[in-house]
């Protein structure tokens, strides 16, 4: 579960000294990627490296609004690239652990093949994360400040994306009139509470 953006983002942020930026990047990436379910042979984003790349990108660009938008966009690209690396690894794993299905195998051999596959996954994720971070460092060195209009537009774009992504998650996981009413009730209670707390 460390690979979930809501965890990996702030942890990466903690390492580079800005956990709150990591949490913002992680939260948005989480909303955008939550619809992808790791069911069967489904190809899904590799969200851990994506959250790390998003956090680093979000902390490199100024000011905050544009930084977050650049970070989440970059994270989406890394997540998508990660899904293809997982796809390739699954093919490789078939050679490592399932080259001759049903063949008698010593327990020690199965243990070492299984652990070898896990090592390959660890190396894949590490390589992907390092490559993504390197790309961020090359593409976004010492970026200057964007004008206020760009910052406002970035916040609007993030809000549009997050609200639509929220609807996508609900629409994918549960449907029906009762779900829509319950969603509305959640919005109403939260609106009253949030405005009252302000």
């Amino acid at each position, binding site marked *: 579960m460390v690979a979930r953006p809501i965890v990996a983002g702030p942890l990466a942020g903690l390492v580079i000294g800005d956990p709150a930026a990591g949490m913002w990047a992680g939260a948005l990436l989480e909303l955008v990627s939550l619809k992808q379910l790791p069911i069967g042979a489904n190809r899904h984003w590799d969200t851990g490296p994506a959250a790390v790349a998003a956090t680093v990108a979000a902390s490199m660009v100024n000011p905050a609004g544009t930084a977050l938008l650049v970070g989440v966009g970059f994270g989406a690209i890394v997540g998508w690239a990660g899904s293809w690396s997982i796809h390739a690894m699954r093919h490789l794993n078939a050679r490592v652990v399932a080259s001759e299905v049903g063949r008698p195998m010593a*327990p020690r051999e199965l243990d070492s093949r299984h652990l070898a596959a896990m090592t390959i996954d660890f190396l894949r994720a590490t390589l992907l994360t390092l490559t993504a971070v390197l790309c961020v460092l090359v593409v976004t060195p010492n970026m200057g400040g964007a004008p206020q209009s760009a910052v406002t537009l970035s916040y609007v774009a993030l809000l549009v994306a997050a609200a639509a992504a929220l609807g996508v998650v609900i629409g994918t996981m549960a449907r029906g009139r009762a779900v829509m009413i319950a969603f509305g009730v959640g919005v109403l209670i939260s609106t009253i509470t949030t405005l009252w707390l302000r």
Partner: protein
Amino acid sequence: MAALNRQLRLRFLLRSLLIQGSWNYRTMQGAGLGFALVPLLRKLYGQDREALNRSVGRHAGFFNAHPYLATVAITALARMEEEGATVDQIERFKGALVSPLGSLGDRLVWARWRPLCVFAALVPFLAGAPWWVSTCLFLILYNAMQMGLRLWGLRLGWREGRDVGRALMSSRLRRLPDRLTIPLAITGGAVLPPLVLAFGGPSGASPIPVIGIALVLAALGYSRPTTARRAVTVGLVAASIILLGLEMTVW
């Protein structure tokens, strides 16, 4: 039937945590299942190397289930092995478990519990709580279900053995995904207003109309999830590339 001793139970649990480690397109979780069963197979066939290797090879064949509920299969198969079930019975049993364990786990964990935990964790952060409150809340909530399911599966599989399918059908867990639907929708709705205040605040807009617009956007995402998801991803990537380009060349 002997009780599943504590040491074996712990080894099953620890090895079940790594069951997805060698997931592949040919045998899916098969090698992971074999890996998880190795401690028991060693105990059963320890003296007979050939039988042990044949059994390990068989269990490393095709298998797939939800990773958290795979413990049901691990201990049910362990019990069948201990009771001396035939190879044919074991293979048919493994095949029969794939769909119910996969379907129940996917509906319960991926489609309900995980998004529910994410939403429940996001609300306090968006409302102004420190980042670690949300991260810890997510980890605690999510892992409570994850570990609970694994431990429940270990006990159920060993207790029921080859009758585990019937026990699964009559368990209260089967109805849990439906019961979590409304809490999921309410918690999802609760995310929207603080999200609007967080991103709408810097733009200086009044919150109520912006919440209304966000609600319309969420409704669009709800009604056309596949199209909306593609549009969101492509839009985010395109916007970030344009911003980067402008930052590098104009500003």
